[in-house]
């Protein structure tokens, strides 16, 4: 007999993850499995450690002075917390989009080709092909194809953010981490980026972890949702569930209060 309930494939397992800045705990004891090929939204009030949590997953937390992490993160066979792993290769597998769009101060084209060169793609034609492809993917190609040499800093906020997504896609990551990617954008640009995120999941089956404090947005795009909450001054995971259940019939009363807008 065939089991109709296919087991959800989890791509990344996080166990008892804690992070502290100097003496202050930012979040504690987060245990969570990130489902493959889906969008996981992390919601919660500000200061609950959502963004700090994200930086642990690609080891960007290494660069923050005074920051110590404990716990376990497994990606396939790779133990992300192992200090000896090659973070360059890891960060190629796990792309990250920041709250404030941060294209490099160079041409639109070079924003994409320079990281490709760095990651060993020597063939210029191949790079040009990827540039066109990823700009198509993020819907920027028709807007910028005639000015690929223009400085990326002159793009609008939404265009900059889509360029940042494009240059990350160019490296073909397995997972995309997004830290409030729309919160610095105006509503129209925000809507465009949101649609883009959904299309990345639908067309290309990306696994996306998105941090947002916009509950409505989480509801529109997420397949799974996790609620972080500040307990004392330290973040904790309250509930993690499929979006349907999370928004309509949460197990935890705090989640209920939060999704109904009573708390947070």
């Amino acid at each position, binding site marked *: 007999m065939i089991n109709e309930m296919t087991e959800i494939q989890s791509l990344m397992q996080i166990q008892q993850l804690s992070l502290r800045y100097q003496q202050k705990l930012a979040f504690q004891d987060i245990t969570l499995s990130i489902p493959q090929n889906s969008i996981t939204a992390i919601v919660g009030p500000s200061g609950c450690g959502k963004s700090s949590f994200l930086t642990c997953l*690609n080891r*960007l937390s290494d*660069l923050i*002075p005074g920051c110590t992490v404990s716990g376990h993160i497994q990606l396939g066979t790779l133990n992300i917390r192992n200090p000896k792993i090659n*973070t*360059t*290769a*890891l*960060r*190629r597998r796990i*792309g*990250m989009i*920041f709250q*404030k769009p*941060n*294209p*490099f*101060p*160079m041409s639109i084209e*070079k924003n994409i080709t*320079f*990281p490709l*060169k*760095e*990651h060993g793609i020597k063939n210029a034609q191949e790079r040009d092909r990827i540039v066109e492809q990823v700009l198509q993917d993020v819907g920027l190609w028709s807007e910028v194809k005639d000015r690929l040499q223009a400085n990326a800093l002159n793009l609008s906020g939404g265009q900059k953010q889509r360029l*940042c997504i494009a*240059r*990350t896609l160019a*490296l073909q990551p397995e997972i995309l981490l997004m830290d409030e990617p729309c919160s610095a954008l105006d509503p129209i640009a925000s809507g465009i980026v949101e649609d883009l995120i959904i299309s990345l999941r639908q067309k290309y089956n990306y696994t996306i972890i998105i941090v947002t404090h916009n509950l409505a947005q989480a509801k529109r795009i997420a397949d799974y949702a996790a609620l972080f909450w500040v307990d004392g001054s330290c973040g904790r995971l309250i509930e993690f569930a499929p979006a349907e259940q999370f928004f309509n019939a949460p197990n935890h009363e705090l989640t209920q209060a939060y999704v109904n807008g009573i708390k947070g």
Partner: protein
Amino acid sequence: MVLILGFLLREALPILQSVGIKAFLTDKTWSPSQQSYNLVPMIWGTLFTATGAVLLATPLGIISALFCQYYAPKAIASGYRRLIELLAGIPSVVYGFWGLVVLVPLINQLHPPGTSLLAGILILTLMILPTIALVADATFAEVPQAYLLGAAAMGLSSWGTIWQIILPASKSGLFTGMILEIGRAIGETMAVLMVCGNVVQTPDSIFAPVRTLTANIALEMAYALDNHRSALFVSGLLLLSVIILLAIAAELVKWDRV
């Protein structure tokens, strides 16, 4: 500043009126007692020592600042910074002294006489290094963290990040630093005077002794009279004009950035 400029002009005017500007470039030699006022060898002297020192100090200073900002652990970086600041505060005569006792004999072993253009370049390099190193350090500190995090999050190598992101983003700051170090190199007197040999000649190799404009003034001012004295003021005027032009250039670069 205006007062000094006015004073220089007043003192330089007599000779400018009596022999004209052209004489300073076309006279046969520099021998003021024979009414011969060719400044060209000294101009070359200043140009060669300053250029050589800037060419050496700029890359060294930038590398030192990169080390300080991006490679050194925090404690070492701040100690290193203090050291560079200290280096900037050493009196130039002490540099000259060190150059005379240590550097010149070394160069003498390589190629006599030792007191030479090379000695001048090396001493000047050491003296202007702190200027460019500190300016570059401050410039790199201003590179937005967002670029660096973005680069790290894409797994870019630190070399690629430095070459493609940090240096281009710091271009105008580094340029300002270069202008400042050029100014310092041109104006430096005591140390170069002590190690350069001070023979009035256009140098034909880096081992040849040279005399810079500043050294010329310092050496001859004490006994110069009349037109000779006035001619020294002309070279002072020339130096000041170059420095003013450099200051204006630095200002323009800063403007461009804002």
